Every structure is written in C-alpha cells, then in structure tokens.
C-alpha cells in the first residue's frame, strides 16, 4: 500500500498552517513529512526524496528561495515538484519564485480544495 503513496513535504514555520495541511494531505493518501524551517526541509528532502514540496518563503535561517536554489543544484533533488505557498503576493515575488524554478506559486490564504487539485495534478 505504502509503495504507491506519493510523498509530500510541508515546510512552514506556522504550526497551525502545518497542522491543517498535514490533515488534508493525509486524508488524500499522501505520505506526509513536516519541516519547520529551510534547513530542516533540506535534511528531510535529502533523506526521503518527496514527490512534491509545499514551501513557505518567509522563514527563519534558510528561507524558501534558498531552499529552492539548493534543490535545483542537486542532481538527486532537482526533479522534485515545488509549490510556493506564501503570503507575499506581489507580482515581483511571484515572478522571482517561478524564475527560480518553482512549479506553482499559490498565495496565502488559499482554498484547500484548489490546493489539493493543483498538487494532485503536479504529482500525477
């Protein structure tokens, strides 16, 4: 059963956001991993190689942009899908995120249904 499960890594420093996302994706049959900042995210990604990462931008220490840069430099991790989830929604922020190679940029607050659909479409 576990073999077919898609792996998702949720990276956010807001516990309640993490809690809600964890609940939703467990319900959708994902194997869920959680990281609370950029460096933890990179450790977990290296270890478990998820199919997709939901990535916050404004985090202490290593921020979301830096995480994405690291991922894209690694041969092992560069194919992981990345969705930015951020409250920053200026056009310039979105452009920067997509330029760095994110697959999707979703602004906070988001609709959970739409998020689930986007994620499913990406990992199909």
């Amino acid at each position, binding site marked *: 059963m576990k073999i077919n499960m898609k792996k998702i890594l949720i990276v956010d*420093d*807001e*516990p*309640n*956001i993490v*809690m*809600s*996302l964890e*609940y*939703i994706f467990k*319900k959708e049959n994902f194997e869920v991993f959680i990281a*609370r*900042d950029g460096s*933890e995210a990179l450790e977990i990604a290296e270890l478990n190689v998820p199919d997709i990462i939901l990535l916050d931008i*404004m985090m*202490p*220490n290593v921020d979301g942009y830096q995480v994405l840069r690291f991922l894209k430099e690694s041969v092992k991790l560069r194919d992981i899908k990345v969705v930015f989830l951020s*409250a*920053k929604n*200026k056009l310039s922020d979105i452009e920067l995120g997509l330029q760095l190679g994110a697959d999707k940029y979703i602004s*906070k*607050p*988001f*609709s*959970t*249904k739409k998020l689930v659909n986007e994620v499913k479409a990406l990992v199909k």
Partner: protein
Amino acid sequence: MSSILVILVILVYLAVIFYVAFWAEKNSKSRWVNNPYVYTLSLAVYCTAWTYYGSVGLAATSGLKFLTIYLGPVIIIPIWIILMKKIIRISKGNKISSLADFISLRYGNDRFLGALVTVICVFAIVPYISLQLKAISETFNVITNHKIVSNSILNDTTFYIAFLLAIFAAFFGTQHTDASERHKGIITAVALESIIKLVFFLVIGIYVTFYLFDGPNDIYNQASVLPNFKEQQSIDGLKGGFNWFFLSLLSMIAIVLLPRQFQVTVVENEREKYLKKVTWLFPLYLLLFNIFVIFIAWGGNVVFNNQNVDADLFTLMLPLINGHEILALLVFLGGFSAAISMVVISSLALSTMLSNNLIIPYGFLQQFSKGESEENTEVIKNIRRIAIFSLIIVAYFFYRSFILDRSLVSIGLISFVLIAQLSPSFFGGLFWRRGSSNGAKYGIIVGFLITIYTLVIPFSIDSQLISSLFIREGIFGIGFLKPHELFGLQIFEPVPHAFFWSLFFNVFVYVFYSVSIIGNYRERNFAEMFVDSTKYASLHEDAYVWKGEAYVKDIRKVLTRFLGEQRTGRALNLFNIKYNIDSKNQFADARLINFSEKLLTGSIGSASARILISSVIKEEEISLLEVLKILDETQKAKESNKELKERDKQKDEFLDTVAHELKTPITSIRALSEILLDDEEVDKETKNKFLTSILNESERVSRLINNILDLEKLATGKEKLDLNENSIKETIHKSINSVTQFAKNNQVRISEEGVKEAKLIFDEDRIQQVIINLLSNAIKFSSKEKGRVSVFTYINKKKIEVSVEDNGKGIEKDDLISIFNKFYQSKNQTILKPVGSGLGLAISKQIIESHKGKIWAENIKPQGVRVTFTLPLNEN
C-alpha cells in the same frame, strides 16, 4: 662618475616608472591604485626640483625665506580642504577637466575667457618646465663632471630625457578622450616618485647633518661665525614681515591654482573622502621635506665658504666633494624624479587646456561637426599628444636659449605671480554671484600686463645683462613708473611688489566691471550653480534654465559624432530613465541640453560643447529675473518631492508587512474552517483542536490590529499620556503579578530584589505595558532549564533606569538595535515562533520616547539579554 653609468641608471629608473604607470593603468581597480595615500602623495608634485635644489640655494643666501613657499600651503590646509570639496563637487558634476574649463564654465561657457586662462597658464608654466629641464641638465653635468655645456642638441642628454617624458605623458595622458577621466597610471607613478624624492632628500639631509657635521648644533655653531649670517637669518622688521606675508599668500594661491595642482587635486580625485587624509599627511610631507633644508644650506655655506659654488647645487656637491658618489647619485635621482613628475603633470594639464579651451573651440569645431566619432576622437587625442610634445620641446628650447644662468627660485616665483592673476576670477566666481565674465577678462588682462611690466620685463632685461637703466629710472625716466617701485611703493622686494600691484588692479577691475555691468542670464545661471553648489548639486540637470526649441534627434546627432552610436544610445537611455521620460519624446528640454553639454565637456571643453549644442537648437533669451525665479521653484519642488517619495516608501513597506502578518493567521483560520466544513468524519478530539486553533489565530489577528492602532496613536501623538505621580516600585510589582502565570507555565522564576523605590511622573498604564512586554519577552527567551528573569533599578539625580534581564542565549549583535523596529523578529529565534505580533518592542520604544526616556538592549555575561529603559526625574 661616468656619464654612461648615469645614463644607464636614468634609463633603468624611467623603465621602472613606465612599468608602474603601465601596471596601474591595467589594474586601475586595484586598492594599490585607489587609496587616499596615493592621492595625497600625488599632491606632493608641488615639491619640484626647486624644492630639491632651489630651496637650499635660497636658504643659503637669504635664510628662512624659503619656508614661505611651504608655510603657505600648511597654514591654508584646513580652509583648503573645505574649498576643495566644493571645487571637486562642481567639477565632477560638470565634467570639468582643467582650470581653464572651470573658469570658463563659471562665467557662462565663455570661450574667450577659457582661452585667456589657457594662454596665461602656458605663459606661466612653460618657463617653469624649462626650469626643471635645466635642473636635470645641470645636475647631470655636475654628477658626470662635465664642465662644458654641450652645444649640439644631439649631444645633450636632457634633450633625450625631455623626449622620453613627452612620450610618457602623451601615452598615459591620452588613454581616454574624456579628459575629465582619471589618469591612474600617471598618478600612481607620480605618487611613487613623491616617496622616492622625499626618502632620498631625507637621506642626504641626515648625511649632511649627522655624518659631515656633528648634528644641528655643530652646523649652527660653524655657520653662525660666517659673515652675513645675522642678516640672512632674520625676518628683517616690518618690511621683511610684509614680504613674508605676501610670499606666503602667493604660495597659498599657488597650491590651489597651479595647473598641476588643480590636475592632481581636482581632476584626479577619485573620492571626496580622500581629502581627509590630506589634512595631516600633506603638511607632514612638507614638514619632512623642509626639516633639513636649512642645515644643508648652512653646511654648504661652511664647506664652500668663499669658493665659487652655486648654492643651488649644495645638495649635490656636498656628497660629491666628500667622495660619496653613490649618495650623490641618489640625490640626483631624487631631484630627477621631482623634476619629471612636475614636467609630466604640468604638460598633461596644459595640453588639456590647450586642446579643450584654445585649439578645439577656435579651430576644429567646423570639422568636428561633420566628422564621424572615430575620426573625431582620434583628432582630439592627437591634438593633445601634439600639445604635450610641443610644450615639452618648447620648454626645452626656452631653457636652451634664455635661462641658462638664472636661479631656480626667481623663475618659479614669476610663474606663481602670473598664475595668481587667475585668483580674483576664480575665488570671486566661487563666492560672489555678481562676478561677471567681463570683469574676469579685464581683470586678468590688466593684472597680467602689470606683472609683465613690473616683473617679467625687468627680469629678462636683467638676464640679458643689458644696462638696467629701465629698472633704475623707470620707463622714459619717469621715477613714478620704476618697475620695482611702482607709484613710489618701496617696501617690497620685486616679487611681492609685482604680486601686490598686479592683484590690486586685477581685483579692482574685476569688481568694478562686475558691479557696473550686469552679466547675462547664462552667466548668472552658472554663478548660482557654482556659488550655491551644495544647494544645486542635488538638482543635477534641473539646475540649468533654458527656453527655446530643440529636437532630440539633432542633439543625438551631435553626441554621436563624439561618443559613437552605442555610447550615445546608452547615455540617452540612462537620461530617460533618470527623469522618467518617454524615449519617443522628440522635443528636448533644458535638462537634456545641459546633460548633453556635460557629456561633451570632458572631451572638447565646456565652451566648445556649448557652441556645438547651440548650433542645433533655437534658444530664446530669458531675463535674469526669470532664471532666478525658475531655479528657486525647481529646487523647492524637488525637495518636497523627495520627502514625499521617502514617506511613501516607508508606508509601502509598513503596509506590506502588516498585510503579511495579517494573512498568516487568516490562512490558518481559513484552512482549518474549510476542513471542518467539508469533512464530516472529523473526530471529536481533532475538531476541538482545530477550533481552539481557530480561536487562537483570531485572537492573534485582533491583537495585531490593536497593536497597530496603538502604535499609530502613539506615533502621531493623538493619544495624550495620562501623567500622574506614581511609585515605580509599585508599577513594577503590578506588572510582575500579571505575568506570574505565564512565567509559571514556562518554569521561569522572576526576581524583583534589585528594585528601589522612587516617585516620579509617568503614565502608569503605559509604563506597565512596557514592563509587561519586556517581562514576557524575557520569559520567552530565558533559559529552558532554570529560567530566571530579574528586574532591577538604578536611580541618580537626573533619571531612573529600569532593567529586565533574562538568562537565555542572548541576541546577535546586529539585532540589538533592530529589535526595536516594527515587525522585526530576530533571525536566530527558536524554531517555534514565539507568540508575538512583532510590534511589542516598537510600541515600548514609542511609549518610552514619549516620556522623553531611552530604551536599549545589550548582551550580558555569562549569558542573557538586558533591556533597559530610562525615565527622567522631574527637576523639582
């Protein structure tokens, strides 16, 4: 010493200098090239062969008078720094590349004035360059023991040296077409030579003072018994005092206005802050250079007493007659380096003036307005190269034919007096709005003629050894017009005398013309920009007033002829971005015209730039009054605009952060509510957990909103403080009580043992808010095990200090100040975000400041943070 050997040494030395220049030009970004030391040392081009030999000569014959030349600059240094800051700013802002350009631009791009200044400078400096060549040649003959001066040019080593210098200056001086660009190769080489000449002079000074003699006392004792010693070493009463004063004044002017000084100080200045280093380093340099002069002079007088030895050559002769040839060679090299620095920088400065202010504006504009950019820049460079060669060659022939037997100092001083003729229009132009171009022109001409009459003619007659009837009796035997005692003025020696009268009439004519005839509006426009430079510097191209009709495509065509297609396009693009102008706009405005003139100024001089641009535009006359009015309005508009922009930016940033901070809890609320709404299978425990979270996040939103409103009220002063006399001890106690539960939950112990009693006036609720905020921060950040927070006070006559300490990890040094900013949360916070809006400390700061107190944070030992605020005690 054999002349082959000396020539070999010279060639090696020149090779080193060429290589250094070459290296610096290649590594123009290097720190070895761009630093205040190189800059300051390059200013020491002031010390020429004159310093090396002439100072000693003058000291030997006239005592301390030699000092005036160095005293002037040292005295004036503090004022010089301020003045130079202004001059450098103006020059950089307008791409000015020479003294002539500076004066010509100030008086409304006046072509004739620029040419006049150029002519005066050439007239003054070429003999001065000859002097350096003469010094090289004489010392070469002394050191190689040549008694006879060779008659054929081809046998004269100095000719070849002059030729090599011309190649050096022409090659490194014309790397850029834009003469206002820095010449890093030349400057670095000159800085190196400044070190060489100083070190070698110190070596010979120490050698004479301590090796040939037994220290300064010994020299003094031996020299003081010589005849004439007393008269030489005193200032000679009031009369001598006047002479001293005017000579010092003359050298003060020289340090600013000598073309080579203007070149190294203004044109070659990379950064304004380099001036700071000059403040002490340059006077120190001059001091070191002058320490031993008097001892070498006295020593020479003692050793060569009653022998026919030229005092100018004491420096070289002393080691020679004692058989120390290597030392003599060092002296020769020192003097050589002093001479060639001066020759190179002076010819560079003069060639820029000649090309940009005389040759191009009067001879090449027609050709330039048709040529292509490559041709034009090549022509400009060639004009400068030819100018450099001609200057040095003319100087060489001048030395050969006229001044073989003149002392170094006399010609140097004549050239100072000639240059000083530029000072009324230069300084007047910087500080006096009314100074007009006609005043400047006539003033300079009158001063120049008087100098010729009182100094240059008598001097050249004297040097021809023709009867000096003219000097003794005056022209046509009119005693009133004796050149050295004009109008019966007898107290001055010839040089101060000429300086006094020429400047007297120069200033008089300048002021008289400026006051009686009002200059045109263009002059006044630049006068405003120069006199009020700090005010108009921020206006950039807006400081230029112009009315008329002009098309961008015409101006573009002119620019392309000098800058080429690519650079012109780039420059105009930048201009459009700077002023937010649509690139399709076909009409040119005052800003574009001024901008284009500046672009061309560095290459062809300000007067030519103006003429070329004017030829493609149609200008309307404006009244002087209108110019001043428009300038005033532009400036006011600009200022208020800047303030508005800054405020807008801060507001934007604040709003961005507020939006971000509000969206975060709302994201949680929305996601959790959607789950609860859509998913009917949620178990009870999860449901409770989710609902609690929703509540918490809602509270967070309202807390944030309250805080923002609070901050706004405090910052704008809308809320009045409720000021009463309160007990600080009681307030602290109350605050601690309200966080007791929070402290218990975190297992933190709070101690208030260090709190003393004091009554003072404050808003109790607000101060309590501050203390609670500090306490909850301290609790959050104190050590996880054995957490401890302590509060204590310190009271003196003026204020009370309240401190809150924790024993946590401390704050990074960079954060100590920024934690009081809005929404600043330290980078090294623990992984779990502590509950907080990011506004607590900002609010606390606002409250304390409205109580006229201060608040700050510091790290303490062994670990933890202490935040302290002060409240002033009322005086009564």
